[in-house]
């Protein structure tokens, strides 16, 4: 057998469950306190993103905001040459007030100053987030129904748990590292869910296929079958995650400043998606499936 010498995923599954539960628990704790670091989409206020066309000194920027009469609650210097100032105001700036700030920067850094302004009524973003959550829950129900018909209900439950796991891991990591959550983050989480379900089904499909020809007498047979199926699809799992990660990492490193966090969420979610498909979903299915073997065996023994 080709698969005997490989890492026993099933045997070690407990460790992975614990790891995932740990991240989730820490995530829940940080979600309760201090909570997600909500960006401008979810928190009233204005964000000004100013590109000065040359390197900007933070103290100088702070002074300029001060002179304009609107000291922001936070200033971040970013961009490739440190030429980008992101300022966050807790109050909503009127357009005349924004113009005042920009004029200050223009007088200091010349006409190359360009800016991006975001002012949001949080109700809309919250409504969108709420709809996304309901959408994901109902979509999960749809997935459960479809997979139950095409496969069996245990696969459906395991796949949906893996999917929710991935969404939650990303939310947890963003919460733990206090990364800013905005609307594009929502899009990232939705993409991750799409990837996760796709990735999981491919492995389940192999288990289903192997089940057809397998004679399963003991729980160990079942374990072997799961291990074998996961390893048979391992090259595909790895190659697929490599290609999607190439995309996400390129966007993260080379893409524009505005999608950096979006790309980071993607990178985290894709890794989690691949991880959960291999180390969480299949062992979970096994956990649910193993009792049926015991019953058969008991029934056989009783005869």
């Amino acid at each position, binding site marked *: 057998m080709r698969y005997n010498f490989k890492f026993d995923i099933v045997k070690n599954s407990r460790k992975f469950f614990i790891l995932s539960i740990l991240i989730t628990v820490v995530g829940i704790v940080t979600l309760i306190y201090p909570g997600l670091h909500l960006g401008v989409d979810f928190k009233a206020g204005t964000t000004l993103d100013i590109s000065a066309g040359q390197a900007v000194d933070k103290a100088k920027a702070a002074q300029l905001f001060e002179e304009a009469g609107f000291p922001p609650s936070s200033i971040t210097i970013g961009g490739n040459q440190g030429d980008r100032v992101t300022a966050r105001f807790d109050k909503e700036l009127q357009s005349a007030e924004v113009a005042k700030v920009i004029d200050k920067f223009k007088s200091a850094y010349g006409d190359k100053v*360009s800016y991006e302004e975001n002012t949001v*009524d949080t109700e*809309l973003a919250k409504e969108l987030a709420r709809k996304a959550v309901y959408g994901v829950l109902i*979509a999960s129900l749809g997935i459960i129904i479809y997979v139950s018909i095409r496969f069996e209900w245990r696969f459906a439950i395991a796949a949906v748990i893996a999917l929710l796991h991935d969404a939650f891991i990303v939310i947890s990591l963003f919460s733990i590292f206090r990364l800013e959550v905005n609307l594009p983050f929502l899009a990232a989480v939705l993409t991750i869910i799409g990837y996760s379900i*796709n990735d999981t089904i491919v492995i389940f499909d192999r288990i289903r296929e192997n089940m057809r020809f397998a004679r399963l007498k003991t729980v160990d047979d079942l374990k072997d079958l799961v291990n074998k199926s996961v390893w048979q699809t391992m090259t*595909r799992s790895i190659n697929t995650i490599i290609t999607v990660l190439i*995309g996400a990492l390129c*966007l993260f490193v080379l893409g524009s*400043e505005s*999608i950096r966090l979006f790309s980071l969420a993607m990178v985290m979610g894709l890794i989690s998606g691949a991880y959960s498909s291999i180390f969480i979903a299949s062992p979970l299915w096994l956990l649910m499936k193993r009792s049926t073997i015991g019953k058969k065996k008991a029934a056989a023994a009783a005869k």
Partner: protein
Amino acid sequence: MVAKRFIAFLLIVVVTLGAVGLTSPYLVQHIRLGLDLKGGFEILYVAEPIEGGQPVTKESLRQTADALAQRANAQKVAEPEVTPEGTNRIRVRLAGVADQQQLRDILKKPADLTFRGPDGKIEMNGSDFVQNGAKVAFDQYNRPYIELKVKDANKFKDVTTRLLNKPLAIYLDDNQLSAPVVQNVISDGVASITGNYTYDEAKKLADTINLGALPLKLTEKYTQSVGASLGQLSLEQTVRAGVIASILILLFMMFFYRLPGVVASITLIAYTWLLLVVFYLLHATLTLPGIAAFVLGIGMAVDANIITYERIKEEIRSGKSILSALKAGSKNSLRTIMDANITTVLAAIVLYFMGSGAIQGFALTLIFSIVVSIVTNVWLSRWLLTLLIRSNAAKKPAYFGVKESEIHAL
């Protein structure tokens, strides 16, 4: 026969890449870019009835949107996008505005227009007037005056009867703009305001009355403004990142899967192009997260190739001939790919019907990218590979990245 197949293969590749190369510049230039990529600003207004108790009707929302578009047009904004959303929202997208501030003030200008009697009592308000019914006209001495129409002639008759020879002042918010005196009872609903106006003053007053005739009151709920050069920079950086990612993915596929990897690369280029065509045909707007989704979509589309090729490799290893390995591999992998994709599409359809705005856009993109990837990365890929193998151009397992030593005897 064998050579014919190889020529057919080459022909398909040349035609595909030729079509991509010839039409791409046109597509890229004509795909509608979001504000985050081309600069401009976006405002989401929430409309409320000026007088309480009146519902916001679909019709009045549309009228208001039309009026906003006209106002933006009057300010010489190219292609203003004004779309009513849901029951009471209007989204305005404007690009290439030199003075955003001024335009925003004009759009936002409170449309709280009132006509007040001498005692300050509000006799009429903006919604009593026919939309865009006010205009500047000239009398016989070529002096400008304002002509306006009211919706309810009887109401106007009543007001002008009561206030005959008294001033009926026009207020915008609490600013008195003008205080013409009612000179006769007007019963046909068409009135004129005369005075010592210059043309510009008259024009401004007429515009303001039209603006006041907007049936709904608008509140800015969301604004986003992106400088044109910043948008351009985001576009360049992100597209460059996407191109580099695509090249790396293609190299990876060719290195790992050899001959099928080359086929995968061709189908990936076709995939990207076809998705652009879909975007173009649907007049979809490409935003920054949209490009990101595009790049990730490439990674996900290539999954179909990977699943198929891995399966073919397995079949070759089990001792099958290349052709039968291709047949068995394609057949077995198709079920896997379809099940995985149908599950994802199902989730996307649910999201589409549950969500709104951005979520719907996302769900649609996901659905289209999956459908397109099945056309290119499953169907086209299999067709090309079959032609290649049948032309006997690909006989060795090494072309598929399979070592001879890995092959089991049947």
